[in-house]
């Protein structure tokens, strides 16, 4: 099966500082892949590289088509949803407006309406809060909103940057359960960045472990989970 997303020899820079040295990975369509690693390993930078938000070298291909060097908004329009670090809520807009603006680029308005109904089915709390100013939502609700905004693009692939960050364990479990359902039912592939390795390995079928901007190991989640050396040295549990 052809890879949905393929990166090879990826390097990324913030000004003069090199954050990724040599990252290669490939995602299978329909799967959930996780990027693991300590703080500063380059997980977030990898996601930002895919969306053209940092200066990169190397190649990134989406469905065989090179996307490196393109503007963020053009990459997004190819069907890549990005749930950013910090959730990126439009705090002064209402919940409904946050969702509608996410579907701004879609031509097929009927499909956008269907996706809105789908999002409300996954996250009923958002429907209840539709007229509320999004900045007043709780952290968990804002995370749900961020995931929903990505889904409103009608994406093939969603990049998730630490969806568990700063949330209570119960909320995290709920969100991860819904992410599993979205992957199963809506056939959306996911690339998940997480600090919480145990949680991420539960959800994902493939894992890559990063250390200081390099891939140090990759494989099926089960194999990574069962590899005690990797677990102890890189995942810290």
């Amino acid at each position, binding site marked *: 099966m052809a890879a949905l997303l393929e990166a090879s020899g990826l390097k990324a820079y913030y000004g003069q500082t090199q954050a990724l040295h040599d990252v290669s990975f490939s995602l299978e369509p329909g799967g959930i892949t996780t990027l693991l690693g300590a703080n500063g390993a380059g997980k977030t930078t990898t996601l930002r590289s895919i969306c053209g938000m940092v200066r990169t070298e190397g190649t990134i291909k989406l469905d065989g088509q090179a996307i490196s060097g393109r503007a963020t*908004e053009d990459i997004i329009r190819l069907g890549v949803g990005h749930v950013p670090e910090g959730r990126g809520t439009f705090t002064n807009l209402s919940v409904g407006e946050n969702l*509608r603006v996410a579907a*701004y680029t879609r031509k097929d308005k009927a499909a956008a309406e269907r996706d809105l109904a789908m999002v409300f089915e996954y996250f009923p709390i958002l429907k209840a809060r539709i007229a509320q100013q999004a900045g007043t939502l709780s952290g968990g609700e804002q995370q749900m909103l961020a995931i929903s905004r990505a889904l409103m693009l009608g994406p093939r692939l969603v990049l998730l940057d630490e969806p568990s960050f700063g949330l209570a364990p119960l909320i995290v479990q709920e969100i991860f359960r819904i992410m599993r359902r979205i992957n199963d039912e809506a056939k959306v592939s996911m690339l998940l960045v997480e600090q919480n390795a145990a949680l991420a390995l539960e959800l994902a079928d493939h894992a890559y472990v990063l250390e200081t901007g390099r891939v140090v190991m990759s494989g099926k989640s089960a194999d990574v989970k069962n590899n005690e050396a990797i677990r102890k040295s890189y995942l810290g549990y």
Partner: protein
Amino acid sequence: MEQLIQQVASGLANGAIYACLALALVMIFVSTDHINFAQGELAMFSAYLVWQALAWGFNFWVALPVVALLSFLIGVSIERVILRPLHHAPVLSVVVVFIGLLAIFHSLAGAIWGHTIKAIPSPFPNFTFVGSGYIGPHQIGMIVVTVLLLVALFAFFRFTPLGLAMRAAAQNPASARLAGIRVDWMLALGWGLAAAIGAVAGSLVAPAVYLEPNMMASILLYGFAGALVGGISSPGGAVAGGFIVGVLENLIAYLGNLFEKITGVYIIGNGEKLTVALIIVITVLTLKPSGLFGRVSVKRV
């Protein structure tokens, strides 16, 4: 009493123009965080374009939409061509560019149309009505057009997908890009809208003050004052601020004259209108820095 009503009415009419300019300033401020010092000269230039169209024999109501569209394109081009390379430049560089634009449009208008005063006739029909003694048809026209403009803009931002995208881009550019919105074009669009609003303001004020390259200088100052009093981050506030400044300057002159009539002591009159208006601005800003209707931005730390 009659004089008081008259002063308030003409204050509202002036306020309408200040409100238009304040609205144009806010339009650019919310999307780029810049105060466009060239806004007044752009409006003046647009007013000359209207005059030119009238001189060629076009009807005012044909000329105005065409000139507004033309100004819109000028605004968009300024953003795309001149300001685009400055997106990451320090604020002072941008300020210098604005002052440069001010000088360019000022001299351009003088070079093309000359520095002698020209007149644009009022586009509103001259009719008499119950309140005719208090307020003229042109003044009523200015107020009506400003209010219509505000309603149209409100509807645009509130109810259209493009308006929503512009608000999103202004509020959180990074997230807007992640929604596939072309943020750079939204900024250009903001400039275009500001220039078009300025065109309306310029061509409405020209019949009242006569057309010449300096006509917008003091009006921009009032517009700026209106925007600050109302809250530079709030379009509705800016319009309210424009009207407030317009009415206040007239009221204060009126009260000053009244005081002089009663006591014989001259404290304040028509000459000090601008001074007083600016004192009010400073007072408001000292007590409420975000303006009367401005949003206080709160950050979670």
